[in-house]
Every structure is written in C-alpha cells, then in structure tokens.
C-alpha cells in the first residue's frame, strides 16, 4: 500500500498557520483537460516523492486571463488578474511553479504592472533546478535511455521568455538522445494554438499549423515528442493522430518523462 498522496491547498495550510515553499499553479488545462490532468498528476507525484512543501489553490484558482488579453479583451484580463492577485497576496505567496507557459508568462511578466510580484518558474526550470541540486535523482538506465526524443519549443516559454535550455536539460538528464527539429529554439515553429487560437478555428489557409509542425517533428524520427505546454500538447497529439502515428510516437510532457522513467 503506497503512502497516500498529499495535495494540500493554500486554505488548509493557512488554517494551520503554515506557508508552503512553492505554490503549484495548476492552470485551467491542468485542472479540466483530461490529457493535461495527467501532467498535473505527474507533477504532484514528483512533488510528493521529493517531499516538497507545496500547495495548490484548488477551487480558488482562476484563469490568469491570458487568452482574454490575447484576444483583445483587456477588461476581462485585468478583472481576472486583479482578483487573482488579491487571492495570491492574501496568502502571501512568493514563489509560483506552473506547468503552463501561458500562465507562466502572464504571472511573471504581466501581473507586476497590476501590482502582483512573484518569483515565477515554469516546471521545466523547477525540474532542472531539482535535478541540478541533486534532489531529483534520475534512475540510471531508465525507460528513456538512448531513446530519440525531440523537444517542441512552446512560444511562450521560448521566444517569449528565453527559456530554451531548461527543458532540454531535463531530457538530457534522462540519458535520452535529444534530436532537434529543423526549426527549434529561437526559430521554433508555433503549434498554432497561441494568441487565443486554441479557442477558435484557424483562419482559411492551405494547411493547419499543427500538421506542419507535427510533420517536422516526425521527420526527426523521434519516438517521443516532448512538450511543456498544455496547448502544444493538444496540438501535437492531434497532429500525431492525424498522421496515424499515435501507436509509435508518443507526445509526453517533461514531468511525465520524469515520472515514467
């Protein structure tokens, strides 16, 4: 019988007068999307395994407002942002880790203008630190040793915030064979979902962006397409299904790679 998994909420900790080291910001996709819930769960398992003092907001969490702002609705964005800041500041939160690059970018870069100042890390950065500090030990000869893995850069992690190395460091820690797509890092091609495109059909064109990107990922011959963003996860998974490759090529998040290893 494994130890029961702990998922403390801020409200519970506050009632006990305790402060967590980090707030894990789950995000809407991580809370509701069936595929990305698996990523949330993988992260929780890692945090539990390493006995990290964390908490989540639970039902007190709310959309950061990123899609509203990118769609042009500044009012809705600021309404969301200001009420989130009230909640975060109410709990005196200092450090946030999130598995969503969109939440990451908004919390880190856009909340300060509205008075919300936090140290915000994307889970790739957090995992990299845990590995570097020796807290997170990767079993030698794990499942992904020598496997070809390609990493799809999320625009909001990469170009938007210059985080290119952390996710690659995590993959390399698995002793995997990291292969790059033709367009990567600063030149990485978007999955097609950013800028609120996730929530509407694409404009008329001659191809879907996620198909273009999936083709490029498949060209590398990788067995795993690693992602670090819920929207990229959806777009790349759909692309792989469209190419009928879902039996041979998996789309996995960095946290899942660690958890499965």
């Amino acid at each position, binding site marked *: 019988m494994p130890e029961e*998994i702990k998922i403390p909420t801020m409200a519970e900790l506050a009632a006990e007068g305790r402060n967590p080291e980090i707030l894990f910001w789950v995000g809407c996709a991580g809370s509701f*999307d069936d595929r990305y819930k698996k990523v949330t769960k993988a992260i929780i398992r890692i945090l539990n395994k390493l006995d990290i003092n964390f908490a989540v907001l639970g039902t007190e969490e709310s959309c950061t407002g990123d899609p509203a702002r990118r769609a042009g609705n*500044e009012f809705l964005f600021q309404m969301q942002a200001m009420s989130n800041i009230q909640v975060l500041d109410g709990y005196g939160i200092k450090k946030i880790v999130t598995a969503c690059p969109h939440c990451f970018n908004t919390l880190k870069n*856009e909340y300060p203008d509205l008075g919300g100042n936090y140290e915000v890390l994307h889970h790739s950065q957090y995992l990299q630190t845990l590995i570097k500090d020796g807290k997170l030990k990767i079993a030698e000869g794990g499942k992904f040793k020598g496997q070809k893995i390609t990493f799809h850069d999320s625009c909001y992690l990469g170009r938007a915030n210059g985080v290119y190395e952390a996710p690659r460091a995590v993959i390399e820690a698995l002793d995997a064979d990291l292969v790059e797509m033709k367009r990567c890092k600063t030149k990485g091609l978007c999955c097609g979902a950013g800028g609120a495109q996730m929530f509407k059909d694409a404009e008329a064109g001659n191809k879907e962006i996620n198909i273009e990107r999936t083709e490029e990922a498949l060209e590398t011959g990788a067995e795993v397409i690693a992602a670090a963003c819920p929207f990229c996860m959806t777009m790349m998974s759909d692309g792989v299904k469209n190419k009928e490759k879902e039996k041979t090529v998996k789309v996995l998040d960095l946290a899942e790679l660690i958890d499965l290893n």
Partner: protein
Amino acid sequence: MAYLEQIGFLILLGISGWLIYKRVSFIKRNINMGQSYKPKGPSSERFKKMMLLAFGQKKMFDKPVAGIMHFLIYIGFVLINIEVLEIILDGIFGTHRLFAPVLGSFYSTLINFFEILALGVIVSCLIFLIRRNVLSIDRFHKSEMTAWPKLDANLILIIEIVLMFAILSMNANDQILQNAGAEHYTETGSLFISEMLIPLYNGMSVEMNLLLERFFWWIHIAGIFAFAVYVTYSKHLHIFMAFPNTYFSNLSAKGKIKNMDDVSNEVKIMLGMQQPEGDAPPPSSFGAKDVNQLSWKNLMDAYSCTECGRCTAECPANITGKKLSPRKIMMDTRDRMEDAGKHGLENGKFLLGDFIKEEEIMACTSCNACVEACPVSINPLEIILELRRYKVMEESKTPPEWTAMMTNIENNFAPWAFSPSDRFNWANELKSEN
C-alpha cells in the same frame, strides 16, 4: 565654365537638401501622430542593442549568405561616403581631388580601398538582383511584393550598381588623363580596380576622356543626391531608421503585452478597489483603429521596415497559407501614415478595414516569430494586438468561439464551460488512482 559647374552643383545640392528636409519633416510629423511611448530598459542597454543590431548588423548574419552580402554593401555605403565628402567639397570649390595633395601617398591607398569596396557593392548587388528575380526565394514573391515594392527593391540595387560603376569609370578616365598629362589631373598612383575599366575608354581623344570623366563625376554625385531624396520615399529608409528604431525598442520579455493603464483604473473602480475620481473622463477609446491610436514607436517601426520578409518567412500563419503577413502589417501601417499625412486622418479611411483586414489579425498566434526574426527590432505583433483590442472592446466583434471563451472566463473562471466547483476534481481522481 568652371563657375557654371560650381553654380550648377550648388543648385543641385540646395534642391536635394530642401527636398530631403521637406520629406523628413513630413515623416517626422507622421510618426508624431502616434501616442506616447516610453521604451522599457536602461538607455545604456538599449544603446548596446543599437550598436549590435544596427551598427554591427548582428541579426543579419542569421542568414549568412545574405548577411555577408548585406555587410559588404553596408560598409561600402558608410566608407565610400568619406570620398563623397571630397567630391562635395570639390564641387563647391571647383577643385579636383582636394584631398590628394594633403594625404600624399596615403590618398592612393584610400582610393584603392574605396574601389575594392565599390567592387564589393557591385558584386553583392548583382547577387541580390539574382536572388530577388531569378532564384525562387519565397519571401521575395509574396502577394504584398508586387508593383511598387518589387520595383523599389530592384531600383535600389540598380541605382547602387550605377553609382559604383560611375565612380570606377570616373577613376578610369581620370587615370587615362593623368597618363596623358592633362591639366588639373593630380597623380593618384595606380588604382587597381578602375584600371580594369581603362580598355573601355582608351584610345579616345583627350577631350572625350575629359568629357567622360566629368560625365561620370556628375552621374555619381548627382546620382547620390537623387538617391538620397529617393531613399526618403523608399523602403531603403531603413539605413537611417535602423539606428533610432533599435535604440527605442523595448528590452522587456517578448511575451509581455503592454498594460492598458486606462483600463486598470476602470477595473479598480468596478472591483471597488478605488473610488472614481471626480471629473476624470473615461478613456475615449480602446485599442487602435487607425495609425494615430498606435504608439509613435509602432509608426517608427513602419518607416524602418525594409520589406526583407524575414518576419513573414517565419510566421506560422503565413507558412500555412493564411492571409496574415507581418511584413504587410508594417507596409500597410506606413502606407496609411503616408495617406493620412497627405490627405488628413479624416479622409474616410482607416488602417483597420481599408488597409489591414480582420482576417489577417485574427490569424495571429502571438508566437513572436516575426519579432524575433526582425533584424532591426520591429514589432508587428504589437500592432496586431492593438487592432484586436479595438475589434473586441470598441466594436464587440469577435469570432463566436471567442465570445464563448470569454463568457466562460467570466462565469466559470476558465476558458471552457466547466463548473468552477469541479476545478479541483483531479485531486480526488489522483488519490483514488494511487
């Protein structure tokens, strides 16, 4: 006769100076139509960025072939201008090779160096002409690159070739005249590049060489004046604008979207965080429908664009056949500024609708590939987002799926139609899975 030449030269100098002055004032006025803007980041860092990107051409080398050719033309342009100074002084004072006696033997080294640069410019421009017109490089053949933009690009290259050919031919005739011992033709020593052109002009009468030397001198300098005027009407304006444009660009993370402080006040009042200030009028409009609602930096961006299309080549929407082209966003912004500058803002036209179509801005994934690709720090994304803000907040026109997404955020605090009370359900699922 010499006086006539001097007077003609001064008139030419005056006219081109006046035309450039008029045109620069017009452009300045147009850029000043924009809203206030303060670049983020310390000026020392921004200066460094300018030195790297504009002076050092750093990003041009992301594409090495074009980068090297462009660099040759760039240093050619900058350094040959030292010789243009001599030519202008010669033109004003009616002298010939004013610097030659002063610089002595170094003069010949210097002119030889300029000639090598001139050859480099000619070769690069020829390669660029081939790249543009013969090789099928996709970014030069997009739908916005027809008519004037296409002609403009070719004209610039052709004019530069003509100017360089003129300077070399001038020197070739000069050398023939030196050898013939013609009056005023100071010894320059052997000029290796123009020497190769001597067979073209050899065996003519001294008078003919004199005429040709003067002819090419005039073609070169009048060409430079005309080109300087032309540049202010052309995409080639980037040679100047690249400097202020990189200096005034933001250093904040690319993912950060500019906060609308007007909206912050309104929202604070709505949330009861702030009392409404007595007479403060609510903001007149949100987002941008026209160029005067963009920032002056957005407008300066448009005048800095040289239509290289590196942005469009990287744009995921454009790559997959959508109407959006970041380069066209910049060209449209500049065209609308020119239109508004000439005919007034209130001429019944607007940037959004008459120049940029809704379908274009709706195709953007805000991925920042265009911003990253631009060698001179132009930001098409900011313009796209300002236009979207207008669409949503002023016209309440959004695709129905976006309306649903926003309603969900308002009611369920998530972009999807899930109940907020289910947000934490995953925790119980996980506990039962374990």
